[in-house]
């Protein structure tokens, strides 16, 4: 019998199960948020569904006790892997005072948590790329062995900040890993109308760094690419651009109707490659996961999601006057 892919990558059975569980949790939290939105309990959802494998495969390849992440709005998988809890994500969904991302100030998906080294993000896309480059610049100046990891969508790779940030990182050989989660759509506009090059990764050549396209539905492939990029970064070999090919299984957001711009059949076809299913199959074939164990995991996650939902729903909003606080440092 040939060796298993994850073993070849140096991942233990326990680690791949943990990866799967985190993917599963992200999916179930996201699904719950849609239910809460459709039942009128939360105003907005923006999804990670279809991108969990890329997000969690990448995060597991990083040193989650010292690396920095600058996620974009779909990266529930990244922030879960970096230590944000289900409860904290639900507090954000309900915009409650204890939301660690923003205390209920920002829409869901605008992640940030200093204790877990998750940089705060905004809504204008791609502004996080130069920030991640700045953190990597600090790593180089301080001669520390951490890297920064930044993600964005393929549409965002058209922004000036993508070009300016990656070029800066390339010129100064900074330890930053940029991962484009190519989910094929920038809201309604498909890849062909967004990006002139065949792959987003092709753009790396202009920035003097390796550009790697990987199957974003395969967490192990993404893990491998990010692991290698991290090794290069800490060895002083500079930045990398990784493009993870994924698919957005939901509409852009809870305010979007994707039936106006893509065929139902296309989404159904993509669901056949849903990483939650394919990775489960891999783990079962590897003899690490059984139907029974998966069912147990499902029950456990359901409990986590239920508890997080109840906790957040019953949590307090910030007092209205809190809106006046923290414009500047307060003594």
């Amino acid at each position: 019998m040939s060796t298993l892919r994850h073993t070849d990558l140096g991942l233990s059975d326990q680690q791949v199960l943990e990866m799967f569980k985190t993917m599963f949790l992200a999916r179930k939290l996201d699904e719950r948020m849609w239910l809460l939105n459709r039942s009128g309990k939360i105003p907005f959802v923006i999804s990670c569904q279809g991108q969990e494998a890329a997000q969690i495969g990448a995060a597991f390849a990083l040193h989650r006790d010292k690396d920095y992440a600058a996620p974009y709005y779909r990266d529930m998988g990244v922030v879960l892997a970096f230590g944000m809890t289900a409860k904290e994500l639900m507090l954000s969904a309900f915009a409650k005072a204890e939301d660690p991302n923003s205390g209920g100030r920002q829409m869901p998906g605008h992640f940030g948590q200093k204790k877990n080294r998750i940089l705060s993000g905004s809504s204008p896309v791609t502004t996080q790329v130069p920030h991640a480059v700045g953190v990597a610049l600090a790593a180089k100046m301080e001669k520390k062995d951490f890297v920064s990891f930044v993600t964005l969508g393929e549409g965002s790779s058209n922004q000036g900040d993508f070009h300016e940030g990656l070029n800066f990182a390339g010129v100064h050989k900074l330890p930053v890993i940029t991962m484009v989660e190519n989910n094929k759509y920038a809201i309604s506009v498909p890849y062909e109308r967004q990006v002139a090059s065949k792959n987003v990764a092709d753009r790396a050549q202009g920035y003097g760094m390796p550009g790697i396209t990987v199957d974003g539905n395969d967490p192990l492939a993404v893990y491998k690419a990010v692991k290698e990029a991290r090794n290069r970064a800490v060895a002083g070999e500079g930045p990398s651009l990784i493009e993870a090919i994924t698919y957005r299984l939901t509409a852009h957001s809870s305010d979007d109707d994707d039936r106006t711009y893509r065929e139902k059949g296309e989404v159904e076809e993509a669901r056949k490659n849903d990483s939650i299913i394919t990775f489960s199959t891999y783990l079962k074939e590897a003899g690490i996961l059984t139907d029974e164990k998966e069912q147990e995991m499902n029950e456990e996650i359901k409990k986590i999601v239920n508890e997080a939902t109840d906790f957040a729903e019953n949590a307090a909003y910030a007092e209205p006057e809190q809106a006046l606080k923290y414009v500047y440092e307060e003594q």
Partner: protein
Amino acid sequence: MPIMSYIQAITTALREEMRRDGNVFVLGEDVGKKGGVFRATDGLYEEFGEERVLDTPLAESAIAGVGIGAAMYGMRPVAEMQFADFIMPAVNQIISEAAKMRYRSNNDWSAPITIRAPYGGGVHGALYHSQSVEAIFANQPGLKIVMPSTPYDAKGLLKAAIRDNDPVLFFEHKRAYRLLKGDVPSEDYVLPIGKSDVKREGEDITVITYGLCVHFALQAAEKLAEDGIDAHILDLRTVYPLDQESIIEAARKTGKVLLITEDNKEGSIIGEVAAIIAEHCLFDLDAPIQRLAGPDVPSMPYAPPMEKFFMMNPDKVEKAMRDLAEY
């Protein structure tokens, strides 16, 4: 006390802060080997090396954005925009990111970056090397905008900006760089951001202004004094957020107020100053609030007669002060 030019005071502040705190570093276009196109970072590359005096690619959004990222990590970046006119590609980073970082993260993250930029006209800089851009940023809570008028203020305020835990835009008048000289103490001192400063005590009229125009107003005040007109001059120093208390006090003192900016008139900083005075000082005023500003055209033309027409100068200021005194 050593006499220094305005730009020497800037360089001195940078050098002293870089010596004091290893986290302070400078980044921008041509700031390294060349020492800056105006030579504001002269000698820093030699003393601190290329890592702390970083020549960046020609890309302003990255200069601001990379600086913001480094500041979030815990560094103290001082980013230079080569001309204030070229800050535009960085506006998204400054307004959407730096200004809102503390607020949007509920005080979890902050972006203590200083962004320096030479502004202002009178140097044959034409449309894109002459602008005053402060009003663009002056309705963005989370930002502080500092515009010093003297070498003494420049040193003390730049040091305060670098030590400030929030983002500060620091606009230096490029004509002041070598025109203005003054006493600058060798020792370490900081001046408070958010506080204006009385540059001349007077009883007859109040002039409120900032930057190079303070210098013009002081020159005009000396001429007026010969005719027995005693001007009170308040230098805003921080143009956002404004020092309301001192503005009100200065307006009440004489009841006749002239506001001066080199910027275009409509939507400028002095419009907000006028609003503060109108709200609080109606019954203290003996004349309508007067505004002296650049014309509402996009920017300063290149040809010398047109540039002179746009640009503020001591004669225009003197006339406006005299007219108000005689009201």
